[in-house]
């Protein structure tokens, strides 16, 4: 019944189907998001079958985990916010009043304005987006649960406040005051005064490293480990006043914007910048880095916004010329970019991926905007101005589904305590801040360059110095002793050079390759006529 040809075609079909499945597995875009790299390309190169089996089993497990993670997407409950305009309507014509009327009551309460007299203000949201901290230039500092509008504390430090920053939990925050940095608890009680950090302009907190990074007026960049209260490192950037600082959430590297249009990236382990990019012909006004750490957007005094690729440190990917210079930028979790331009805030959607002609939303404030920040896990943008603080609705800006083991907006007190202990146990050491943080989970294979360098080192070895004192046989016979010493040293040198020459010879043979093969051929009688 089954002719061989039929069988063959059947097996062919089966093979094709198998291949299709394989390709599907590899190139499934949903899986690609959870992929931890391509894995081992050619397992047959592993000669030991036990090792090969072990590696293949591991690969299988990894792939299984990726698949399970992708499948768990079904369980995500919340959906992203959006605006669907009517025909002929534009989203950037919508005012906050329009939007807040169209949404439910609880969301409408998230649009509010605070009229405060101690401005201009700086502010910060906690990592879970639940608490808000504002600090006015004239000394007003207030912390609140902005969702329920419950005030935690409100104090006046009677001193200039340059920046405020939440620490790892909502019970502690830092305020950069006129001279030093102070740490307060959420009741407004001063816990510490850190005199090592002075004249600070900007602060940012690295939650996984427990580092408070600060930049100061004289160009000093410092990292303070707040879990032990010690300064990890402090470098003079030699770039003058550091008023633009942002941290890359992907690798923990600090990005500084300078007045010469340069952006430099710093890690606490290296005294020089890891990278510096000339981004603008004029001074950098603001930097924003997206939550995945892939894109950076910068703005300059000549009203430009540029988007850069942070993985390759290339770009600009996108380039926008505005009418006025943006003084602050902020990326949301879902890729909205807000730009503060005088007393307006313009929000662009996905402007780092595709070219955008007009803003998604525009909001006007009464006074000059000093800072903007998207609230994490909410469709809310916070704006601090000269005359207070306002919170506006930006549908589609926040990440709808949080991971409660990472950050939890609905955290209870006991959960917060437990998370604090866990995160302290898991504190990543500052030595691990590098441009590519995945390097630790990669196989440590010496690159070709390393190998060549190691070989080249062999060519330039120095003769090691030996310490040799000849035995004293007779008193006063110093000339003979010196001669003996000289002879021994010279012999040592000769021997070393001899050894090195042999090594180099081998090296040359190995690199040339071809010559070696000829030599191994069986000797023939005619060899005597060959050139030596």
């Amino acid at each position, binding site marked *: 019944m089954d002719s061989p040809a039929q069988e063959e075609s059947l097996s062919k079909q089966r093979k094709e189907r198998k291949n299709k499945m394989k390709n599907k597995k590899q190139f499934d875009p949903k899986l690609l*998001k959870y992929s931890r790299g391509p894995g081992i390309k050619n397992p047959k190169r592993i000669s030991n079958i036990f090792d090969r089996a072990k590696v293949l089993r591991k690969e299988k497990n990894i792939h299984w985990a990726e698949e399970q993670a992708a499948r768990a997407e079904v369980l995500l409950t*919340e959906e992203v*916010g959006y*605006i669907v305009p009517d025909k002929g309507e534009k989203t950037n014509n919508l005012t906050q009043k329009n*939007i807040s009327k169209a949404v439910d009551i609880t969301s409408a309460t998230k649009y509010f304005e605070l009229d405060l007299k101690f401005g201009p203000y700086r502010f910060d949201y906690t990592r879970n987006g639940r608490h808000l901290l504002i600090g006015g230039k004239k000394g007003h500092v207030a912390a609140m649960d902005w969702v329920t509008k419950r005030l935690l504390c409100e104090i006046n430090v009677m001193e200039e406040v340059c920046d405020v920053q939440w620490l790892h939990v909502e019970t502690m925050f830092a305020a950069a005051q006129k001279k030093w940095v102070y740490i307060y608890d959420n009741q407004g009680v001063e816990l510490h005064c850190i005199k090592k950090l002075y004249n600070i302009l900007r602060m940012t907190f690295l939650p996984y490293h427990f580092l408070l990074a600060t930049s100061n007026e004289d160009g000093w960049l410092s990292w303070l480990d707040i879990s032990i209260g010690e300064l990890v490192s402090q470098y003079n950037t030699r770039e003058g006043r550091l008023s633009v600082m942002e941290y890359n959430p992907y690798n923990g590297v600090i990005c500084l914007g300078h007045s010469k249009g340069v952006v430099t990236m710093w890690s606490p382990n290296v005294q020089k910048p890891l990278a510096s990019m000339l981004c603008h012909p004029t001074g950098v006004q603001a930097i924003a880095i997206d939550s995945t750490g892939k894109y950076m957007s910068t703005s300059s005094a000549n009203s430009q916004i540029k988007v850069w690729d942070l993985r390759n440190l290339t770009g600009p990917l996108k380039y926008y010329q505005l009418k006025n210079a943006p003084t602050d930028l902020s990326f949301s979790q879902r890729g909205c970019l807000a730009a503060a331009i005088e007393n307006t805030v313009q929000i662009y959607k996905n402007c780092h991926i595709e070219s955008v002609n007009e803003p998604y939303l525009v909001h006007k404030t009464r006074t000059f905007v000093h800072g903007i920040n998207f609230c994490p896990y909410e469709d809310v943008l916070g704006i601090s101005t000269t005359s207070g603080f306002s919170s506006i609705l930006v549908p589609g800006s926040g990440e709808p589904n949080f991971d409660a*083991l990472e950050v939890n907006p609905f955290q209870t007190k006991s959960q917060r305590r437990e998370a604090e202990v866990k995160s302290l146990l898991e504190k990543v050491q500052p030595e*691990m801040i590098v441009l590519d943080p*995945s390097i630790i989970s990669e196989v440590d294979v010496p690159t070709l360059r390393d190998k060549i360098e190691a070989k080249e080192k062999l060519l330039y070895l120095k003769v090691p110095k030996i310490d040799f004192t000849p035995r004293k046989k007779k008193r006063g016979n110093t000339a003979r002793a010196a001669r003996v010493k000289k002879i021994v040293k010279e012999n040592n040198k000769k021997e070393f050079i001899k050894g090195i020459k042999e090594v180099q010879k081998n090296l040359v043979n190995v690199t040339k390759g071809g010559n070696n093969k000829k030599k191994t051929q069986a000797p023939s009688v005619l060899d005597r006529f060959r050139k030596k």
Partner: protein
Amino acid sequence: MKVKVLTRNPDDYLRETKRDIHKVPRNFDPDHHPFEGAREYVRALNAVKLEKIYAKPFVGSLDGHSEGISAIAKHPKSLSVVASGSHDGEVRFWDLPTRKCFRNIQAHDDSVKGIAYTKLGERFITIGDKTIKIWNSKVPEYGETDMPQFSIVSKALLTGLTYSPRYEKFATCGEKCQLWEEERNEPITTFTWGVDTVHYIAFNPIETYLIGACADDRSITFYDTRDSGPIRKLVLALRTNQISWNPMEAFHYTVANEDYNLYTFDMRRMSSAVKVHKGHISAVISVDYSPTGLEFVSGSYDRTLRIFPADKMNSREVYHTKRMQRISNVSWSLDNKYILSTSDEMNIRLWKARASEKLGVLPPRERASLAYNEALKKKYQAFPEVRKIAHFRHVPKYIYSASQQIRMMRTKEKRKESNRRQHSKPGTVPFVSEARKHIVKEE
């Protein structure tokens, strides 16, 4: 116009009552979990540190004998019962959970040379001063005298005893090896090979007709009980003190040798050792396999116990205490969790087989977390920091300095050999692997 803004109903995210567990919504998007590698590494480092913190292997000691302990036997069916015999002829029975002695017998006038339980543990046999006594395992009622059921006077000297795992037979050794049946006054078979005294004998737990015996003439002899004759003989450079069969792989056995090493052999190819286990700094007296056959414990004259993976050269663990003297016997419990060691200062010590293991029933979450830690340790075991912490064992100064010295001696020998090879005619100083070096002959 249609607008949707993120609003979360707190009811979906908060637990209803205080008795509920917290709701933990997850999102596995890698972008939400930055520093994945670095954090996992830190977790692995913590796991390996925690293992060291919790490493408290000593459980307790069984104190009661008034002489050094010469023999120990585990009950084949009950995990809690262990019998020990001392040099003054006393046999004691211990209840391990309470660590109390529940029965003691003055079994012999002289030292008890061996104890063995029968296959199901209803009787036990003791040997000493040329007599074999068979006792009932049941503790006598109040008023009854503790007497052996049966006793045999042997013509030959007795030094070791082993009970067949399958048949109602047992074997003794001494001047010669003898196979006995219970309730018979005469041995059913006698094996000899050469004239020397055999000091230890053990039945293979799987191939139940096979007996391994260690003799004073540095040899290890194998007898077949069906054949009434010896099969193989292996002579090592120094005397072998004990032999232990791998309970899972019938053809593998490990011997404890006087030359500070243990050797694992394959019964089928004894010309070279499968593995040479090093680490002790004095003669190895005793060895016992774990019931899984993956590891074994060895006790040495250097007052330490070492646990070796059966396929590794170095030990994974070393146990020592201040007061513990020279080890005379070791025994791995049949639930694979504990180790018993007897030493010269009349104590039996109970150790955990895995030093940091938590005893008792574990709640599922704790079990999961321990399993996770275990996986992390395995994944990051090659990282220098992790490896350093995992491998480090603090040992007393005398052991540390002696092992340094031994290492120095071994490197010296190696260097000397290579020098000799370099300066002699090629081929005259052959390479002999460590696995073959200590074997004198094989018959």
